[in-house]
């Protein structure tokens, strides 16, 4: 997985990080079209990305700038759920197809509530 900056997503951030367009782009995972078959995925599927006990659900999309044999996500709170300080921008994770929708922002933010 690589974590990248995207001008279109950052443009939406100026409308606020609760902006629907921003959340949609932030909760998307991009593959090269020709790689989808190898991952047994189709555009529009929901996948769970997990590593070291942390997980996040994202929507599958295609983009020809995704890395070959890998996936690309945009820098955001979604990426931050599975990245670590040591491999902030490039890391290995497990991906599996799941039912349902991408994780909701409020679902993530609930984890930050003070106990």
């Amino acid at each position, binding site marked *: 997985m690589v974590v990248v*900056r995207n001008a279109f997503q950052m443009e939406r951030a*100026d409308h*606020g990080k609760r902006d629907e367009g921003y959340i949609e782009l932030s909760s998307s995972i991009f593959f090269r079209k020709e790689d989808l078959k190898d991952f047994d995925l189709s555009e529009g599927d929901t996948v769970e990305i997990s590593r070291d006990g942390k997980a996040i659900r994202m929507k599958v999309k295609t983009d020809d700038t995704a890395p070959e044999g890998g996936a690309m996500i945009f820098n955001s709170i979604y990426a931050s759920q599975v990245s670590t300080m040591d491999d902030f921008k490039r890391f290995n994770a497990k991906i599996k197809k799941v039912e349902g929708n991408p994780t909701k922002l409020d679902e993530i933010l609930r984890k930050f509530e003070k106990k």
Partner: protein
Amino acid sequence: MICTGCACLCEDIEIKDGRVLNACLRGSSLIRNLNGNRAKARVDGNDSTVEKAIKTASELIQSAESPVIYGLDTTTIEAQSLAIKMAEKVEAYLDDSSTYCMGPFVEMILKGEVPSTTLDEVREKADMTIYWGADPFHSHPRHMSRFTYYPRGKFRQKGWEEDRYLAVIDVRDSHTSSLARKKVIVRDDDDFMNALITLLRGETPSAYLKDSAELVNRIKKSEFGVIIGGLGLRYGLKNLNLLRDLMKELNQVSEFYFIPMGCHPNMRGFNETLYERTGEINRYSFRDGRSDPEYSFSSIVKSGKNDVVVVIGSDPVSSLPYDISSSLGRSKLIVVDPRETLTTEIADVVIPSSYSGLETGGTMKRIDGVEIEFKPEKEEELNDVYILERLMEGV
């Protein structure tokens, strides 16, 4: 008007009949949406007056035993200087996002370990630009048109068509690499850098022979080249000594410089201001009088050593790994920001500020260290300098 959308700090932005001219998608979006999503003063989740928010924050800082100050890359040097003074006064830990971004590269430049130059020099003279782990098309959309590839330079009148050569090294195809004359997809940045060094020393590398040979041949023909290193290089390159060696070898065959691709508008300003004061660029403990990886924002917050965190113009809940940001709620959190962010949502105290550079004047340092002065038409009184001065009064 000068745009603060990224560290290019474009100085040619105009507003005519409500339209933002010359800016890229990101810059025009920032300027058009200045009034939306503004932060509101809050204390303990309840709406408050700005006065009460500042007073509460000041009391929290005053009574803190182990405060941390973080962010500051989007504010002016004047505000950064005040934050450094405050950190000194309360013996705080002080850090900015350069620790996770271009810090190591900026440090090498400030210590004279790798040669660097200005983007103006690049515009006038460069006949070769190598973006390494950087995709300016998205991160700094006017970087190529203002400085590196598309402009006519004093010594490069035929521009990109004949005078300039663009190469991109990355782990993937990118919109920037689709414009390059030469793109190299690398799995391991150390291996590829090693291959270039080996070839420049006249030996044969064991990996990436074809790509490195093609690039080195072109490098040998260049008169003035620059490597622009982005986050991909920062996280891909494990051995920083390789960069020192590469720059040394490149300068045996041509004139070559390195410029880091910092994203935040004034990250470089923070690094240089702290460097002048302490000889270090980030992750500094004023209690211990030194910099150390264990004083980085992430290490301190994760270890729980802090009792108050002051975040100025940054959104760590969004940008830092959950392992780190989840610890923010363990202590009191004060956020100073012009807009609502995911970090203001969980903060104990929110102090609304204005956009540095756009709504309030001062100075910043561009990505290449060039100082840029901001004189907006209208000055907002509630700005980072005012807020920090008020917070300082309390301590």
